[in-house]
């Protein structure tokens, strides 16, 4: 086994040198390639034509509010749902025609738990290794490796039902890695976890990137987490509205975000429009707008607005601003919108009955 690893390293070395030549780099096969992917559920278009490529070794973030089509997209890439149109390859295999080859090469961590809580952690991982046909003599060492990474090796013989939510999620990540997948899919890996566990899960992800040749595709709706990704795609209403590195996306926004608290928000928005020609909106209960060089703008604002300002806050663009500039709402408001829409549909269904 060690000699095998040695061989692989020897083979990898010239490949890295070759990668410096752009012609060969372009020929490198993407870890994920998606073309015009769509998915309809009856009359609802959940995903409406998505295109992107993910390079090997990349940490690729998929952002958007709940209901934007992230999970549907991930399900199609994992062969759990059949696309209505378009095509996708994962680890070089078509997700429809070569379903098994895709499955051999991917690891999955779902939003909802998928562990057998009546079994111990080690039994869960062993079951996974058996299902995936991992060579018997490698099961134990690999299990130790992935469980040590998430700090659960000492607890391996405890039943999963005694685990906390954070421990379960860590165990699921370990299990997703048991068979050394080339692409790891993480669907909201940190949702519902406390900040400390969220941070440690991110440190595993970064560690993984350094240690194993693995591509990570994840969805999240925490904007602060998206900063850790190499590239991110923002999805809204079933479409990708932006795709770039977090830095580039933030630079593209070009404006600082100014939040002001006043006694009369309506009048303030009208005044901003009238005096400065600025489109402002109410985000999370406060008047918010974007201007270039926000700090220099504040003194003018106080002089010319004509409405008493109680507090003011200026910040550099964040990914949330990126999201806002592309979708017109903050991610939290967008989520409420989706929820409202769902409610409305529900109400219609109820009255129709």
């Amino acid at each position, binding site marked *: 086994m060690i000699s095998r690893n040695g061989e692989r390293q020897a083979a990898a070395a010239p490949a890295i040198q070759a990668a410096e030549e752009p012609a060969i780099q372009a020929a490198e096969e993407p870890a994920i390639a998606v073309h015009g992917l769509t998915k309809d559920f009856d009359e609802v278009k959940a995903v409406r034509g998505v295109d992107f490529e993910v390079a090997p070794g990349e940490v690729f973030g998929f952002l958007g509010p709940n209901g934007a089509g992230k999970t549907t997209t991930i399900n199609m890439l994992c062969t*759990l749902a059949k696309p209505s149109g378009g095509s996708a390859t994962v680890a070089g295999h078509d997700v429809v025609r070569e379903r098994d080859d895709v499955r051999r090469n991917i690891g999955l961590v779902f939003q909802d738990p998928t562990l057998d809580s009546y079994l111990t952690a080690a039994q869960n991982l062993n079951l996974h290794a058996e299902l995936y046909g991992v060579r018997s003599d490698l099961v134990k060492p690999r299990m130790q490796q992935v469980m040590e990474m998430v700090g659960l090796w000492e607890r391996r013989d405890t039943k999963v039902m005694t685990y906390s939510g954070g421990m379960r999620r860590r165990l699921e990540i370990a299990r997703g890695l048991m068979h050394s997948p080339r692409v790891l899919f993480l669907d909201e890996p940190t949702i519902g976890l406390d900040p400390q566990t969220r941070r440690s899960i991110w440190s595993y992800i970064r560690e993984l990137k350094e240690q194993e040749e693995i591509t990570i595709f994840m969805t999240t709706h925490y904007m602060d987490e998206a900063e850790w990704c190499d590239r991110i795609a923002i999805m809204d209403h079933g479409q990708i509205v932006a795709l770039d590195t977090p830095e580039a996306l933030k630079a593209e926004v070009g404006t600082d975000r100014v939040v002001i608290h006043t006694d009369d928000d309506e009048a303030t928005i009208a005044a901003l429009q009238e005096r400065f020609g600025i489109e402002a909106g109410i985000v999370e209960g406060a008047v918010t707008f974007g201007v270039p060089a926000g700090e220099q703008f504040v003194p003018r604002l106080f002089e010319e607005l004509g409405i008493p300002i109680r507090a003011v806050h200026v910040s550099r663009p964040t990914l949330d601003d990126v999201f806002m500039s592309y979708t017109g709402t903050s991610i939290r408001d967008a989520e409420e919108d989706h929820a409202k829409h769902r409610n409305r549909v529900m109400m219609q269904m109820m009255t129709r009955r």
Partner: protein
Amino acid sequence: MSTTTRVTEPAARRPEHPIVKVTVPRRTLASELRAIKIVWRRELIRFASDRLRIVTSLVQPLLFLFVLGSGLQRLASAGTHGVSLKTFLFPGILCISVMFIAMFQAASIVWDREFGFLREMMVAPVRRSSIVIGKCLGGATVASFQGVIVLALAGVVHVPYDPVMILGVFALQLLLAFTITAFGVMIAIRIKQMQSFMAVMQMIITPMFFLAGALFPPSGLPGWLTVLNRIDPLTYAVDPMRRLVFAHLTISPAARQALDPGVTWWGWRVPSGLEVALVAILGLAMLGVAIWEFSSTE
């Protein structure tokens, strides 16, 4: 509390441990058998760790055997030609004991869906049929293990511990358990909610159990009951079981005629071999349907 140490620990250890890299081979028959085996083993592990269920699932057969058997003894004594009613009921109880557990085992597929574990198996690079076969074999094994516990009571109801009979009973229990599990799995794939699954199973299994003649001999019944009894597939599991047990009893010919008349089709006594084959074919057919259903769900 110890998050920071947890995080830095593996980083510090890293140089000593080379990465253990494994590969997932292409699907072969051997890998499918391995998948079947692990799905089967999971059922056994879960059963072994659930001691309460082992005890509770014994309650029902024991109630039938001892309470019904003792309670009706005096009323029945005229018709049993000196044979204890408990002895008469025993073969039927051997069937009941596996039936209800097999049904419960099939329900595990509904639980697996509810608790998300089914997804873990569905995305694995194995055939769906391997999962279904593993589930059915696991359910059959667990249920017949439970049946063996009831079989151990043979002495109490004056049935001799004959090795040939014991092996035969075990084989029949295994077959019956497999067929019922396959039937349950077939239903469980369609029904996604636990309550409805249990309701449907009760609705189907309970009449089947009553009609099968586990609690009465299948001759001299009113016409309508005879028809329903002969249609009921369980009849063909109960009858060979009774014949097998009665073959090892020393009782009067009159008692044998009254208690073990055998199942007849228009006066022709159906041989045990055919009865067993019927149950087996039915089990395999339902397994086939279950596999087809499971493979065609997304």
